[in-house]
């Protein structure tokens, strides 16, 4: 259980490890994008954790990274097809960032640091925790950026028709501002407690 919980807060992949910044900054301009990206990344994390953990005694050390990349790329391509089959709109708005999950270092990082050294059960809990922590983090960015930048959440108006959208928030610059302030807040909170 601790393997799961640490990903949510104490070792949150975005706020504490600061990994996988490319999707965090690029696609959090709407809540929907954050949800789809979070789910896809969690799917890839969990599936590759199972395979990497199950084959950890079979794969020689020298080719482990190549094998992990191959395993991860397979699951990413699978999730790419699945998203396309479920919703073309979601696929269109995420564009190339689905394929780029391959190079998200959270996934290779967990495969190398955890799944290749632990049993399947623990690896799955770890992957689920990291996936949930990642989803939670990009969801926070998505909610802040979409509500301020477009005045909506999941396409529904939150501030009423008179709200003048804060366009910078859905542009790339806004992602850096929001992430910076979130990191500031979280680090302050953690320091004040510890």
């Amino acid at each position, binding site marked *: 259980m601790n393997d799961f919980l640490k990903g949510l807060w104490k070792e949150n992949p975005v706020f504490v490890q600061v990994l996988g910044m490319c999707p965090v900054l690029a696609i959090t*301009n709407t809540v929907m994008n954050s949800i789809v990206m979070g789910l896809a990344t969690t799917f890839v994390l969990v599936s590759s954790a199972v395979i990497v953990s199950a*084959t950890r005694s*079979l*794969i*020689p050390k*020298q*080719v482990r990274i*190549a*094998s992990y990349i*191959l*395993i991860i*790329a*397979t699951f990413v*391509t*699978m999730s790419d*097809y*699945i998203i*396309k*089959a*479920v*919703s*073309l709109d979601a696929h*269109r708005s995420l*564009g190339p960032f689905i394929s780029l999950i391959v190079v998200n270092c959270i996934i290779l990082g967990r495969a190398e640091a955890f799944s290749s050294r632990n049993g399947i059960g623990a690896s799955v809990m770890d992957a689920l925790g990291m996936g949930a922590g990642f989803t939670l983090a990009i969801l926070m960015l998505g909610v802040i950026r979409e509500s301020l*930048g*477009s005045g909506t959440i999941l396409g529904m108006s939150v501030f009423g028709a008179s709200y003048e*959208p804060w*366009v910078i928030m*859905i*542009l790339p610059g806004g992602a850096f501002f929001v992430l910076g302030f979130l990191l500031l807040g979280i680090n302050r909170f953690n320091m004040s407690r510890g």
Partner: protein
Amino acid sequence: MTESMGSETKTTSSTRMILTLGSVGLVASVLLVVTYTVTLPYIEANQAAYLLASIRDVLPEAETNLAWTIDGESVTNDESGSGPRIFAGFDADSVLYGFAIEAQGQGYADVIRIIYGYRPDCACIIGMKVLESRETPGLGDKIGTDPAFRSNFDSLDVRLDDGGIALIKQVGKTNPWEIDAISGATISSEAITDILNASNAIVLPVIHANLEILSRHE
């Protein structure tokens, strides 16, 4: 790697490495083929539904449509044509109502793909929808979402004798062949104007020359 390592261990180890990577690759390709085969019908259905919905958007009164491809001066209804695709839309009485025309061109960020509705009897555009664009969110992407900009295309005069569509900035349009630009997104507005003018110059003469073939509903 150290010198003391025997050549025998090296050989076994590289065989094992090749075998490992080979089997991982094999399993991966099987998984991918299975996923591809399972999801393909859903993906194709989604794409067909999206295209149909887009044609409905730009030709609201068309009940059925036939796909054609522009090939030089003529039109073909197989896949051999090299030019843009057009869809002849027919109303409930199977009378030709208008055409949905696919077009694309360079925008501010990347290629913009659009589809627009054209009626040959008034030589006018009656609707425009952005199919794909990577324009700046909040500024350039308004070409697809801004109701005021889209209303430019409810009835846009595109007779070929008067030099095409003109983009008007700030002062507001006064003539039926003009488009009001989005303020803050001039380049994207210009891109749409250019795409429409370029596409009209190629497609409209072919449509009018082949109107008889295209009007047949079979």
